[in-house]
Structure formats: C-alpha cells, structure tokens
C-alpha cells in the first residue's frame, strides 16, 4: 500500500518537475500528463474512484489534448534567448522553496493526522453505496444551484471561445 503511494507520488512530482524544467512545450505537456496520471492514481488510492476517473478523462484526456493541439497550431519553438539565473528564475525558485518550507512548517507545527491511518470504509462497496450514487445525489439535491451556475458558465465559456477565435477581432 505504502509502496504504491511512494511510486505514484514520485510519478506526480517528477512529472511536475518536468513541466517546469523542460524547454520544449510539447515535452512539458507530456510531463504534465504523467503528473496527472500519478495524481489520479493517488485519488484512487484514497478510494475516490469517480474523481480519479474524471481526472484522467477531463485533465489527462480533454484538457491536455487541447493544450497539445494549441502548441502544434501555434508552432512554438523552444524559448530562444533563455538565460538561466535571470531575475525571474531566481525569484521563482526562491518563492517555490519558501512556500514549500511554509507547508512543512505548518504540517509540523499543527501535528494534524500524524498517527491516524486510513479510517475504515464500511458503508461502501458490494453491500453499500457507491461514489457515483452519493455524488450524484448531492449534486441534484444539496448542490442544485451551483450545478445550474456551472451549466451557465460552460455555455458562456463556449460562446466566449467562439467570439475570441474569430478571424477579425474588433
């Protein structure tokens, strides 16, 4: 169990590093797909099957195909005049390391969930309910208003994309 956690966590982190470190945008995009697959495996390890599958379908599938499509369409080369150690690179690394130190400090000081393992799931599985059933029930009862709003958001995003990608933007 813990072996698979370390395996997929390493996959997600190595993929994330690849996004930042590779110069070619196509390689970065494939690294991001690797990272999303590792994350989806971690979701499934946490017994969140529906969102794990959604992560693969929507992120690693649809979103990254869109990214790759745009990269190929724009025909972007590597960053030409790239000098490492510039102001933005130093600042980015400093802020990243600082944020990570802050996360470690907070986790260490709070002491939340140090000794507690995974709580048992008894109401799920063969004789119980399922992820799809419970999430669907919540979506159409407690969260009926947000899901309507998300529908409107998706519609306006579709219209917005069509307007934005017209040839002559006035």
């Amino acid at each position: 169990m813990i072996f698979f956690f370390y395996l997929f966590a390493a996959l997600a982190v190595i993929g994330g590093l690849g996004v930042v470190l590779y110069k070619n945008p196509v390689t970065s995009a494939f690294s991001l797909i690797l990272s999303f697959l590792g994350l989806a495996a971690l979701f499934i390890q946490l017994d969140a099957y529906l969102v794990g599958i959604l992560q693969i379908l929507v992120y690693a599938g649809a979103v990254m195909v869109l990214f790759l499509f745009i990269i190929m369409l724009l025909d972007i080369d590597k960053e030409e005049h790239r000098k490492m150690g510039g102001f933005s690179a130093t600042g980015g690394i400093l802020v990243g390391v600082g944020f990570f130190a802050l996360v470690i400090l907070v986790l260490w000081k709070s002491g939340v969930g140090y000794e507690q393992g995974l709580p048992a799931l008894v109401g799920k599985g063969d004789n119980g309910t399922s992820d799809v059933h419970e999430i669907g029930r919540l979506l159409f009862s407690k969260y009926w208003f947000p899901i309507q709003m998300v529908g409107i958001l998706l519609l306006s995003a579709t219209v917005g994309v069509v307007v934005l990608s017209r040839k002559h933007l006035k």
Partner: protein
Amino acid sequence: MESTLTLQHFLLVSGILFAIGLAGVLARRNLLIIFMCLELMLSAANLSLVAFSRFGAENGLPDYDAQVMLFFIITVAAAEVAVGLAIIVALFRTRETTDVTQIDEMKF
C-alpha cells in the same frame, strides 16, 4: 510507525506539487507553460481536498461534499482552459509571440 499512510503524506505531496507549480509560474516565460503550471497548482489543491475527504470519513463513508467541490473545480478548470487558450491564440495572431517578456505594454 512509518508503515501507515497518514494525512500528512498526502498533504506533503500536495504542497510539493503546488510549490513546483508556483515556481514554474514565476520562472517560466512561455505563456503556455505558465498556463500548464496553473493547471498543476489546481490539481495539487484537488489532492488535498480528496485527502481531507477520505481522512474525515464518518459512519464509514468519506465526506462527499469535498468530492462534489472537486467535481466543480474540474468543470471550472476545463472552461478556464478553453477560454485561456482562445485568448492565447488571439494574442499570438496579433503579436506573433507567446513570450511574456515581449508583451509589456501594460507594464508599470
């Protein structure tokens, strides 16, 4: 007790991924890669949501409110990617570049 998976493990991975994404947003100059790093940060936040949902299980069921929230985050992220990439394409048509250092009219 190094053999049990705890909430700390997952929060730590989530923090590492968020830090990588944040560093990438600030350090990289290609607009598309900055956008990919934003997606990485969103996913890192998703991981901590799922971890809290699983470790906050009550009556043998995980906290499904967190997973519904994650569903909304994924939906909004998909819409955001579509609009953002359309803006990048429109920008590339007029400016012929995706380098953020070349786009500095509004720089103070």
